[in-house]
C-alpha cells in the first residue's frame, strides 16, 4: 500500500491544477458572458487571422 503515499499527493496535485485553472479563468473574466461565448466558438470570423 506504499503506492498510496505517491498516489494521494499526485491526485491532489492534479485536482489542484484544475482548481488553479478555474481560478485563472474566473480572474480573466471568462465567466462574464457564458451565452455569448457559446455562440462565439462557432463563428469563423477569426479562423484565418487572429483577432488583433
Amino acid at each position, binding site marked *: 500500500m506504499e503506492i498510496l503515499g505517491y498516489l494521494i499527493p499526485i491526485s491532489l496535485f492534479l*485536482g489542484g491544477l484544475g*482548481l488553479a485553472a478555474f*481560478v485563472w479563468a474566473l480572474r480573466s473574466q471568462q465567466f*462574464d458572458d*457564458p451565452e*455569448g461565448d457559446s*455562440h*462565439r466558438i462557432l*463563428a469563423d*470570423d477569426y479562423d484565418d487571422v487572429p483577432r488583433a
Partner: protein
Amino acid sequence: MAVSAPISACPACVAAPGAEDLAAARDAKGARILLSMPGVHCAACISTVERDLARHPGVGSARVNLTLKRVSVEADASVTPEALIERLDKLGYEALELDPGVLSMTETDRQGRDLLMRLGVAFFAMMNVMLLSVAVWSGAEDATRDLFHWVSAAIALPTVAFSGQPFFRSAWAALRARRLGMDVPISLALILASGISVYETIHSGHHAYFDAAVMLTFFLLGGRYLDFRTRAIARSAAQELAALEVPRAQRLMDTGEETVNVVDLQPGDLVRVRPGGRVPVDGVVTDGTTEIDRSLLTGESLPAWAGPDTVVSAGEVNLTGPLVVRVTAAGKDSSLHRMADLVAVAESARTRYTSLADRAARAYSPLVHVLAFSAFLVWLWISQGDVRLAVNIAAAVLIITCPCALGLAVPAVVTAASGKLFRKGLLIKNGTALERLAEVDTVVFDKTGTLTLGAPEPTNLADHPREALQVAAALAGASAHPLSQALAQGARAAGVHPAKVDDLREVPGYGVEGRWRGQIVRFGRAGWVGATPRDVTATYLAIGDAAPRAFTFADRLRPGAADVVEKLTAQGKHVMLLSGDVPGAVSELAQRLGIADWRAEALPQDKAALIMDMSAAGRRVLMVGDGLNDTAALAAAHVSVSPASALDAARVASDIVLLGRDIAPISEAVRIAEKSTRRIRENFAISGLYNVVAVPIALLGFATPLAAALAMSLSSITVSLNALRLK
C-alpha cells in the same frame, strides 16, 4: 432564506446619484461607450455588430455581451454614441445609450465572482473527498482509514471555512436578530459535522462526515449562486432602464442657457422646455404657447392647450412650441414626489407577502432543531451517558434533514422561469413576483400607454373629399405635433399627395396655417379654426369660409393588446379597464377589445382605492399600467407590470417590466408563473418525501456517511431535474 430577500425596492434610487457623478468622469475620459441592445440574440448578430462597429472611424474595438445584451466600444473621444446608434439602426438593431458609471460592474460582479470562486473550491474539495470516501465505504480499515480521514480533514476543513462563509454570515445575522432562518440549521450542521468528524478521526472512529459537510456546502452554494445570477440579471436590466433617464433641465440665466440637474433647481428659476421634451418641474408658463400631453399624469389622451399662466406639472410632455417655465416646485416638493408619497402609503398597506420558501423555512427550522436535540437526549438516555454516540446521531440527523433540496427547489425553478420570461421580454424585478403572479384572479389594465401606445391614428380619412385630404396632408406635414404626424402618415399610406400650400406657418399651441389657391387654410384646434369641438380626439380643417371638417383619431392599440385580453379571459381571469381618460374614449376601447368592465375619469387616488377595495374583498389583482397616475395603484396591487416606456416612478413601483412593445407576453407570463409555482410545490414535496424516508433511519442510528451522501445527492438532482421540466 436568501430567495425571499427582496431586490432593492428601488433599483433606480440606488443607481441615479451615481449616474451623475460618473457621467462627469466619463466626459473627461471619453473612451468607453456602452450601448444596450435588446435585439441581439444570435451568433450571427455578434459578428455583424462587432465587425460593423469596428469599421466606424475612430473605433478601436467593440465587444458584444450576449448574456447582458450589451455592446461595449473602445473609441476615440471623437466618436459619439449617437453616431454608433445610428449605424446600428441601419443594421436593424435598436440600441440605447447607457451610462457606464451607473452600470459599474464593480459591486455585483465582485459578489458574483466571489460566490463562483467559493462554489469552485467546494466542487474541487467535494470531488477529492468523495474519492477518498469511496475507499472508506468499500472497507478500508485501521491505519489506512485513519490516513484517509486525515487527508479528508485537511481538504474539508479549510473548504468549509472558506466556502461556508455566506451561510455562517447570514446565520449569524439571523441569530442576532433573534430569528431562525434556513441558514442557522445549515451552519449548525456544517459545524457539527466537521467537529464530530475531527473528533472521530482523532479517536480512530469508523464514521467521518467530511464528505457530507463538503457536499452540503457545494449543493447549497449552487442554489445560492443560481439565485444570485437571476437577481443580478434583473438588477442590471433595471439599472439599464434607470440609466436611460438622467433628469436634466435647461436653466435660463442672465448670461445664457445652462444644463443643470433637476435637483439643483430653485423655485423662481426659469427653465426652457423644448418641443418634444418632458417638463422637468412643476411651474407656471411665462412665455410661449403650445400643446401639452398629460397622458402619463392623468391618462387623458387629448393634448391640452398651454400658454402664459398655465400651470404645468413635472412629467408632462411639451408637444409643439418652446416654453419658458417659472419653477414653483422642484425636487422633493414637486407633484412627482407627492405621487411618490402616495406610493409609499400604498406600499405600507400592501399585505406583506410571505414566499413559499419562507413558509417552508419557518416550518422546517424549528422542527430540525427539535428533532436533532431530542435524538441527542434520547440516545444519551438509551446508551446511559455515551455522549460520543449521542452527538454522532444528532449530527447525522442534522445532515440528513439538511435542506439541500429545499435550498435548490426555489432558485432552480425561479432561474428557469425568469430565464424563459426574459427571453419573451419580461423582466422579473422582485423575487416573489412569480409566486404572486400565479395567484392572480383579476387583471386591471390602464388605457393610455398600456393597452394603447399613446400614439394616435386617423379614423375617418375616408369621409373626406380628396381635395380636403390633400390640403390637410400638406398642412400636417409642416408640424411635429403627434396628431399632425399621424395624419400625414395616414394620408401617405392612403396614396394622397399633399397639395401645394404657400406661406406655411405653425402657430404653437393652435395649429398650422397656410394659403391654398388664394384662400387661408387652417388646421388645428377647434376654437382656432372656428369649429365646435367633439368629444373624441380630433383636429379640424378650415378651408376659407367653408364649414370646418373634423379629422378624428383613435389611440393606436399596443401590439398584442387584443390577444392578451382574449387569452386572459380564456384563462378565467376577470379583466377590467381603468382609465383617467374621458368616458367616450374608454368605452370605445373597451368595446373594441371586448372588456365588459370599465371605468373612466379615475383619479390616481381612485385607482389605488379601487385596487385596495378589490384586495380587501379577497381578490388578487394584477395591475398593468404605465403612468404616474397608475403608480399608487401599481404599488397597491398584489402584483404589477409596467411597460419599459413607462415613467421611472411607475417602473420602480411595479414588480415586472415589459421590455418589448408587444403586451401579449403577459398572458404567457401568468401561465408560466402558475406552472413554476406548481413545480416549486412539487419540489418541496419531493424533498419532504426524502426526509420522511431518511430521518427515521438517522433517528434510529443507522445512518452512515454513505447513506447521507446518497440521500443528499439524489434529492438535489431530482429537484433540479424537475425544475428544468418547466415549459
